[in-house]
């Protein structure tokens, strides 16, 4: 674009360039103000209000009592359920993120390598992404059922009846069972993103690697993966943030049980806010503020660790 193209345009009714600039500013405001207003009303104000609430013991009419950092002190030093929820969320996030991204990449490579029936496989693997958490949760709750669930049926059928479990009813397996369900739902999404990135790789680079007699493993490790690195980092950060806020699937499948074995920070906040028969939103607000801070801190840490700040696009 040249400098002349940026000059104000003289209009048909003879307005000078100054007038055109004024119109432009008004137009600009017309576009910006609604967006800013929506942001202020529905994002900034709720965030600020939540931070304020976290320092209060609240009644429903807004008649809060200022308690300073007391809620945070209670959460950090005396609330065992909170730390159980943090532990579960951490396991879910770390294991889930690694499995999500690595699994998605493997599926994408499988399709990229031209596996048989790749079109069908792509549809099958992507279909769970289109389902709501409610549907996915109900389907997998049935699959995990002790008596009539498919998983225990298969175990009995292949002679491994001793391994049958109440998958969602045992504190030792419940979190992993939910995690597998979550992976099943989201692998297809990561696969599609990785596949798109693979398809966009420069053919000449891959061709040059083949000319150098580079084997598929070496090509994957030394050529493809480095070029996919920005995509994988973005997926990692997005997956990480999503899992730190995990609520829907856990709520539908286990409600945080048994014995808080699948309680996540989000389900705990919800319970404290709405299931404890109290209107006091101060304490759950404090958990939400604390957890948001932790998520931001972890994301910043990840960006620093990966040293790829300028290439992240989430």
């Amino acid at each position: 674009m040249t400098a002349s193209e940026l000059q104000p345009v003289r209009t048909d009714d003879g307005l000078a360039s100054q007038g055109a600039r004024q119109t432009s500013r008004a137009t600009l405001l017309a576009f910006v103000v609604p967006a800013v207003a929506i942001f202020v009303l529905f994002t900034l104000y709720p965030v600020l209000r939540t931070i304020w609430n976290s320092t209060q013991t609240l009644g429903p009419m807004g008649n809060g009592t200022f308690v300073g950092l007391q809620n945070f002190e209670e959460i950090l030093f005396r609330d065992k359920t909170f730390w159980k929820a943090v532990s579960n969320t951490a396991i879910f996030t770390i294991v889930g993120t690694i499995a999500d991204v690595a699994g998605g990449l493997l599926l994408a490579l499988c399709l990229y390598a031209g596996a048989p029936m790749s079109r069908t496989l792509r549809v099958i693997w992507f279909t769970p992404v289109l389902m709501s958490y409610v549907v996915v949760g109900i389907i997998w709750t049935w699959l995990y059922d002790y008596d009539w669930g498919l998983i225990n049926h298969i175990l009995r059928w292949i002679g491994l009846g001793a391994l049958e479990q109440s998958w969602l009813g045992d504190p030792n397996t419940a979190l992993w069972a939910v995690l597998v369900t979550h992976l099943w739902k989201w692998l297809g999404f990561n696969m599609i993103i990785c596949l798109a990135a693979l398809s966009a790789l420069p053919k000449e680079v891959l061709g040059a690697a083949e000319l150098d007699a580079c084997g598929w493993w070496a090509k994957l490790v030394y050529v493809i993966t480095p070029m996919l690195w920005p995509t994988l980092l973005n997926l990692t950060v997005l997956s990480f943030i999503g899992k730190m806020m995990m609520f829907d699937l856990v709520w539908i499948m286990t409600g945080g049980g048994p014995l808080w074995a699948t309680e996540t920070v989000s389900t705990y906040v919800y319970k404290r806010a709405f299931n404890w028969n109290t209107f006091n939103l101060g304490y759950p607000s404090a958990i939400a503020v604390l957890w948001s801070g932790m998520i931001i801190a972890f994301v910043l840490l990840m960006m620093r660790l990966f040293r790829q700040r300028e290439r992240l696009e989430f």
Partner: protein
Amino acid sequence: MISCRNIVVAAAFAALAATGSVAKAEDVTLTVWSHEADEPAKVALREQAARNLEAKHPGLTVKITWYEKDGLNSALRTALPSGQGPDVFYVEPDQVEYITNGLIAPLDDLVNWNNIYDWARAVWTHDGKTWALPEEAYTDELYYNKDMLAKLGAKLPDNAQFSQADFLELVKKARAADITPIAAGVGDRPYPGAYVLAEALLRKLGTDDYGKLLHGQLSFEDPRVVGVFKWVKELVDAGAYPKNFMTLKLGESHHYFYQKPGALTFPMGSFYSGRAFVPVDQGGQAADFPLGIMQFPAMDGAACNECKTVAVGASFAVNAASKHKELAAEYLNELATPEMGKRWIETVYLQTAVKTGDIQFSGPYAAYFTELMDRQKGAKYFTGMPVDVLTGACKDAFVQVMNKAFPGGLMSVDEAVKAMNEGCYKG
């Protein structure tokens, strides 16, 4: 030529037209927000009460907005604190926050309480005032399959109540015969797993001490409480509950009891009928299903083996910010006439807090209601299910421990007692 008088008359008509029609004395819209949109019998009753009130007050419109429970509660949480919301709304007894925060109006002088049972009114009485009109009521019952009981060679005692030892023996017999002794599941509800334990605690302790236990004034380490936990643990270890207890949902547990695979007993609120008394293809029990009702087992050394839990469900409150409190109360009175109470039982198939006088039951479920009423004879009631009475960490402990983990076989008696004490005991 248009005269000044004509202009004045025309202006007056124009002004009237601009402000709408001439207002009647009672040109009012009474707004009601109700849960249970998916229960046609209840919808019909509440709409009928609205039409009855409209007929008594020309110009009055009663507008009922139907919700599901979560949607209703979310809407109320937003509307009430801002001084808005409907004139009348659906509440349940665990929602005491509406009282403590001054969001609903006391109804002592507004509602005709002669039509409501005293025990039901007591549920909504706090600090000497009554805050909502109870409509629905139910008791905790132990349903059983008469044919299966006979098959096991057992006979129900004349008072319909096994001793705790006999009940344990029955559970072992059933399990040996490959019959699930107690159909229950906690996949989607915070209470079905605790029926047997809670009712046993109530009988063992009596209403006063049981109330103290739930309110944190009696330790779960009390020997009587520990004794009851030990007995329930014996039931659990004997295989009383289904293996898919942890994931079985409420609807599925009904199906489990009266269809497939079948179970000997089914502890449930008497709202059992809401799911069971519908056509089989909609998940109901077969017309010839041999349904019986027994009392929960008698506990050794019990304070009150005739005690049972009664609970109030659907209730209606008047918004403290309503400008039409008297009309709102009149709507509540329309819900609570003896005729409406009778119609409730006959169409909703459930008990009600509304006095109905002596009813001769008729129809396909007459035998059921007769037996249900027999099981109430001589009963001493404790009002409120634990999940409704408890709050905060104690409620959470109840849901996780007494409802799920303990009957699910995941905890020892000591662990369960300790966890409950940590959540509930204030001593």
